[in-house]
C-alpha cells in the first residue's frame, strides 16, 4: 500500500517553475530521500507534502485520503495532515523548555496532564534525552536540539515523518552518529520517512529509495545500489561521481 502519492504535482512561483509536473508513489514504511543540489526543488516538494506550500497543479494523497487537489479545490491545512516534520533550523521554541516543546502536540490534542507526562517521558527516553526536560533550547548542544526536534515530530505518532536537511547544522562526527540513530529509530517505529538532503553519502546510506532531483525534475528513482551502479542520466552520472 502506498502511503504518500503525488499525482502530476507542479509548483510555479510567478513565471519560474520550481517543480515540474511530478508523479511519485511512496510505499508505507519506506525511508526515501530527495537528493539533489540546492535549488533542485527537493525542499519545495517536501513543503508541498507537509501542506506548508500549495502546489499550482495536481493532487496529493496521504494513504487513501485526498489532502490536496487543484481541480477539486481541496487543500487540507498542515495541522490536519498528521505529518511530523523536523526543520533544518530545528525550529525549537526558545521560550519553552524541552518538556513543553515535546509536549506541545499533545496539548493541542487536549490530552490529560498525566497522559502527557507519561508520553513525553517515553519519547525523551526514545531519543536519549531523559533528565534534560527542564532545559531551554539555548542550553542544549546542536545534537541535543536535533533530538528534541525529532521527539516533537514523532510524539503525535504521525503517519509520515519529514526531515528537511536535519543534519546539516551538525559537525561531521556528530552527523555520522545521528545518522545511525535516525535510521534505527525509523526502523523501530516503521514510519514512512522522507529525507531531504544534498549530501549523497547520507542519502545512499540511509535510504531504501533515493529520488535524485535536478532543476525541478526527477532524474532517477532507484535503490541506492542501483543508483550508484546504473546512473541513468548524464546528470546522475556526474552528480554521483563528483563527491
Amino acid at each position, binding site marked *: 500500500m502506498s502511503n504518500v502519492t503525488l499525482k502530476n504535482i507542479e509548483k510555479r512561483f510567478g513565471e519560474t517553475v520550481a517543480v515540474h509536473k511530478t508523479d511519485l508513489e511512496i510505499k508505507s514504511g519506506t525511508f526515501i530521500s530527495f537528493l539533489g543540489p540546492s535549488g533542485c526543488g527537493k525542499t519545495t516538494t517536501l*513543503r508541498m507534502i*507537509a*501542506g*506548508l*506550500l*500549495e502546489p499550482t497543479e495536481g493532487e496529493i494523497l496521504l494513504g487513501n485520503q485526498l489532502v490536496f487537489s487543484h481541480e477539486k479545490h481541496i487543500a487540507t*491545512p*498542515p*495541522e*490536519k495532515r*498528521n*505529518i*511530523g*516534520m523536523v*526543520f*533544518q*533550523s530545528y*525550529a*525549537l*521554541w*526558545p*521560550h519553552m523548555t524541552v518538556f513543553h516543546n515535546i509536549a*506541545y*502536540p499533545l496539548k*493541542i*490534542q487536549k490530552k490529560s496532564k498525566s497522559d502527557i507526562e507519561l508520553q513525553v517521558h517515553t519519547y525523551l527516553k526514545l531519543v536519549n534525552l531523559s533528565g534534560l526536560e527542564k532545559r*531551554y533550547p*539555548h542550553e542544549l548542544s546542536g545534537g541535543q536540539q536535533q533530538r528534541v526536534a525529532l521527539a*516533537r*515530530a514523532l510524539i*503525535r505518532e504521525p503517519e509520515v515523518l*519529514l526531515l528537511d536537511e536535519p543534519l546539516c547544522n551538525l559537525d561531521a562526527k556528530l552527523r555520522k552518529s545521528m545518522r545511525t540513530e535516525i535510521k534505527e529509530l525509523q526502523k523501530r517505529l516503521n514510519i514512512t520517512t522522507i529525507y531531504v538532503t544534498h549530501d549523497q553519502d547520507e542519502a545512499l546510506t540511509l535510504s531504501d529509495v533515493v529520488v535524485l532531483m535536478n532543476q525541478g525534475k526527477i532524474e532517477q528513482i532507484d535503490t541506492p545500489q542501483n543508483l550508484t551502479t546504473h546512473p541513468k542520466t548524464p546528470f546522475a552520472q556526474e552528480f554521483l561521481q563528483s563527491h
Partner: protein
Amino acid sequence: MLRSCLNRLKTEHWILGGSALLLLYFAAFPLLLLIFKSISPEHIQNYALIVSKKSNWISLLNTLSLCITTTALTIIIGLPLAWLLYKTDIPQKNLWKSLFSIPYIIPPYVGAIAWLKLLNPTSGSLNLFFMKYLHLNSAPFQIYSLGGAAMVLGFFFYSFIFLACYNALQKMDPSLEEAALMCGSNRWQAFKDITLPLILPALMSGIILVFIATATAFGVPALLMMPQRLFVLTTRIYTDVLNYSGGILKASSLSVILMIFGLTGLWASSLFLKNKRFTTLSGKYARGEPLSLQKWKWPCIIFLIGVWGIMVFLPLITIVISSFLKIYGEPLSFSNFSFQKYRYVLFELATTQKSFLNSFLFATLASLISVILGALVAYVKVKTHIKSRHWITFLATLPYATPGTVVAIGLIIAFSGSHGLNLYNTFWILIVAYSVKYISFAIQNTAAALEQIDSTLEESGRMCGASWLKVFATILVPILKPTLIASFFLIFMPTFCELTMSILLVGPKTETVGTLLFNLQSYDDPQSAAVLATLIICVILTANFMVKKITRGAYGV
C-alpha cells in the same frame, strides 16, 4: 609630570576628549544640576509642597490615565496591523507599510489641530454631519477631553507598536510557526502559543515607548485638555513656569518626578530585550509562506482602507482643505477655494517668515552639530577602549530618555547666567536643546555603521602615512556618508517642528514654526494654523522622501 602627560596627548585625544566634554557639559550637566538643585536643602521643601497640592495629584492621575488609554488603543491598532501586513498575502504590502508609518514622522499636535476641526463640539464638521443625519440635539463627540487626547495620540503612537512588532516578525524564523502547524495547531493557536510570546519583548518595548511618549507629550494635551482645565504633568509644569515668578523652581521638582517616568521606562525596556529565551535571530530567513487570505482578502483590504482613511488621511486632508478655504466655516465649494490665506500667512503675517527661517536655521544647525559630535562620540564608543566610554555614551543619551519639558527646564536653570554661561532668550539655547535631545539618533546610527567597518581599514590608512584626523576624514567619513546624511535628516525632521521644548525656550526673537502654530491655534487664528500645518507636513514629507531616496529605503518611512 603634567607637562609630559600633556605632551603625550595626540590630536585624536584632544578632538575626542573635547567632544565628549562638550557633550557632557551641555547634555548631562543641566539634568544633573536640575536633580541636585531640587534636592538641595533650600529647595527640598518644594517636594512637600507638591505632594500637598491636590492639583498636582490630579495631573499625575491624568497623566497615568492618558497613558493607559493611549497605550491600550495603540496595541489594538498596531499589533493586528503588523500581523496583517507582514504575515498575510495582502497586496501592496510595502505601500501599506509606508502609508501606515506616516504618523511616525508627523508631530501629533498637527493631528490635534485636525481633529479639533472635525470634532469640535460646536463647529466640528464630523459632529455637525452626525447631528444632521442622525437627528441628534447635541454633538456626539467631545474632543476637548482626556478621551479625545488619547484618541489623537493613539492615532499617532500606534506606529511605534506597529513598527516594533513588524520588525520583530521580520526577525522571527518562520519555521518556528510552521513547526507549530506541523504539531497540529491551527493558525490562531500557533499565533497565541508561539508568535505572540516571541514578539512579546518587542511589543513590550513598543508599549514602554508609547507610555513614555504619552507621558511626556505636550502639544496634544495642551490643545485638547487645557481648555477644559484638565492638566497633565507636562502642561502643569508649563503653566507653573508661565504663571509664577520662581515657578521654575517648583516646576523643577515636578520635572524630576516626570523624569523618573522616562528613565524607569528605558531601564525596563532594556531588561526585556536582554532575555535570551526570546532570541529568535540566528541567521537569515526567508519570509516564509504568507498566509493566504482567500475570501477574507477584500474585507481585509476594505478594513485597511477604512482604518488608514480615518486615522491618517482624514486628519491630513482636513488640514489641507481648511487651509484653502476663503471663508472659514462655510461649506466646501469651488467658490470658497482660495490662496488668500497662504498669501496672508506667507507674506503678510510678519511672524511667519521669521519663524520659518528660524526653524530651518535651528534645525539645520542642530542636526549638523549632532551629526558631527555624534560621529565622534560613536567613534569613542566603538573604536576606543577608554574605560569611561560607556558612561560617556550613557550620559549623552540621557536627554533622549528625559522628557523634553524637563530638558528645557534643566537648560533654563543651567544656562541663565548663574552658572557662567547665559544663553537664555538667545537662539543658542534652542540649538543646544535640539542637539542634546536628538544626538542619540546620530550616535546610535553611526555606532552601528562603525561596527561594520573593520579596524584594518583605519590601520592601513595610518600605515600609508596619514594622520588620525586624515584617516577619519578621508576613509571613515566617506564610508559613513549615507549614515551621516540619514542621521542629519532623522534629526532635522523632529527638530524642525519641535514644540515641547521650544515653547519653554523661545524668546521674543526666536519663535519657531511649532510655537507659532501653537499660538495661532490656541489664541487667534486657527485657519492660519491650518496653512502653517500644511506647510510643516510638506517640509517633513519632503525630508522623509530625501532620506528614503539617499539611503535607498534603509531609513525613513
